[in-house]
């Protein structure tokens, strides 16, 4: 990076001092504005929490902004039993974790051939994987729905698992190929001279060194798959195969969805993602930012 060197001619003391005084009050004003923005961001969640455990009568009497006077759990149990929450949670976990592992593995194999192996037509292939990330799912969904019906995977979580393994690994391949493209050649050469096969080099040399990147990818694949809506909505018609977002959406507009049921339902549907966010907050922010510059 180029650094502009500016001759320090002016004496900064006087102006800087005055500046600091002015900023003393200013800084609280600016913090106040930013915090206010953050409060606005949180309002929907606060409203959700306040009304998840408030009885419908109390809601109509005192509105959405008060604390509940009694701990009303009917909304939560209502939602829990109607959507069979543990089943949906398990579906979401199976789909997201299988996709995360399988897509990371495929990304690594592809990227090994492209980044380390530098097979012919490498730039082309990486370009194809990049394009695949941009294609709208709408232009794949009907054929996928048609094929899934033909092979008997329609309405099965495995159709969603396979589809997202491929979609996520297209991104993973694109990203990892450029990471592995800069893999230190000396390490590969040393392993080769030791008589290691390509398979051994992949698992004994490349894998241990890229593991931090792979784990970030895996976490992202998990969250992205967890949050997917369109393809699961189309593929998972049966109540028993649905994911959490699809099951919640299926109840939308139902007359039995009263205020506490909607709020408690949203609350426990968001909770797994929030927990995941809190655990992996650091990895996630590091991950998106490193992906952005690539």
């Amino acid at each position, binding site marked *: 990076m180029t650094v502009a060197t500016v001759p320090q001619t002016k004496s900064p003391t006087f102006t800087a001092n005055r500046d600091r005084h002015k900023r003393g009050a200013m800084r609280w004003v600016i913090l106040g504005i930013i915090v206010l923005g953050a409060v606005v961001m949180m309002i929907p969640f606060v409203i959700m929490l306040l009304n998840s455990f408030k009885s419908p009568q109390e809601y109509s009497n005192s509105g959405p902004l008060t604390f509940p006077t009694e701990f009303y759990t009917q909304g939560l149990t209502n939602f829990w039993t109607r959507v069979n929450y543990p089943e949906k949670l398990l579906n979401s976990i199976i789909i997201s974790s299988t996709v995360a592992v399988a897509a990371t593995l495929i990304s690594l194999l592809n990227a090994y051939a492209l980044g380390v192996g*530098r097979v012919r037509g490498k730039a082309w292939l990486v370009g194809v994987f990049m394009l695949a990330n941009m294609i709208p799912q709408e232009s794949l969904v*009907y054929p996928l729905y048609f094929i899934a019906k033909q092979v008997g995977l329609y309405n099965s979580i495995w159709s969603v698992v396979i589809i997202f393994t491929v979609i996520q690994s297209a991104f993973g391949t694109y990203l990892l190929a450029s990471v592995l493209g800069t893999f230190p050649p000396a390490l590969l050469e040393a392993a080769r001279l030791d008589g290691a096969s390509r398979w051994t080099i992949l698992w004994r040399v490349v894998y241990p060194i890229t593991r931090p990147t792979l784990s970030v990818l895996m976490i992202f694949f998990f969250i992205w798959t967890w949050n997917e809506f369109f393809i699961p909505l189309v593929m998972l018609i049966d109540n028993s195969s649905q994911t*959490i977002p699809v099951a919640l959406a299926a109840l939308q507009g139902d007359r039995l969805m009263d205020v506490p049921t909607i709020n408690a339902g949203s609350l426990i549907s968001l909770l797994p993602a929030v927990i995941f966010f809190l655990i992996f907050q650091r990895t996630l922010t590091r991950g998106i930012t490193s992906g952005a510059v690539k």
Partner: protein
Amino acid sequence: MSTTTPKIRPDVSYWAYLIPGGALFLAIIVLPFVMNIYFSLTRWPGLGDPTFIGLENYTRLFQDAVFWTSFRNSIAMIVAMVVVPTLLGLLLAAVLFDYIGKKFSGQVSSGLRAVYYLPQILPVAVVGILWSWILNPQTGALNVVLRSLGLDALALNWLGSTDTALPSVMTVMVWVQIGYPVVIFMSALQRVDPELYEAAELDGAGWFTRFRAITLPQIKPETFVVTLTCTIAALKVFGPIYVLTRGGPENSTNVPSYFAYQNFFPKSQVGYGAAIATVLTVIVLVVAAVFIVLQTRSEKKEAEGR
């Protein structure tokens, strides 16, 4: 199989490592993509055999008012998901990093960043359902509060009236999207050499001048990434529309992806839906190409300028 580089012993070709990923890619992306283009040239209710009709779906599409409305709404989505979040996110990131981070502490700024980022990691369909209740005309939190304040006139049918549905959806999308640019820009700012700011400060440059002359040019690469990825996301948006308005009322919030879905499934006009999806794909790819060309050109210009 033989290899090109001198080896101690023969080894499996690198091509072998592409077999599982490549085969899946062909079956799940390439084949459906080609099938969809074929479907777009047919009339087909999804059962029986498709009838080949050439480009008829496309000519019909360009005369369809709903199609044009859906693309006009895409522009509204770009405003709500790209323009506003990028501008606001830039300002927020600069203040959080440059001001809050220095005048208070890094912890305060990263805590605030997490708050702004939270909606980004949540399932957008679920937060959409939460919002659709908040904006519900009868029982929704917003109107209940407005009425209790005596502002009955303001308690509108937010998602159900053609005047307010699109602005309401746009507001929700700004809320969903804002955290992404904040996080990206904050990390971009960490790259900027602090000496540049110090030098400018000594020259008497105010905060805004420094922001314009140093920050903006330095974080150009991230600005490209943010605007490109958000524009593609805005063109593809489906989940929030599905849970908030189902494209209504009277198509006032319909978008291309939801319009395609409507034709595929509820209406069983597969060929027509496939044509909408193909046009959307072309637009996404053209937008991406334009972005990438612009970026390479500006990088080249910068390299020449130095």
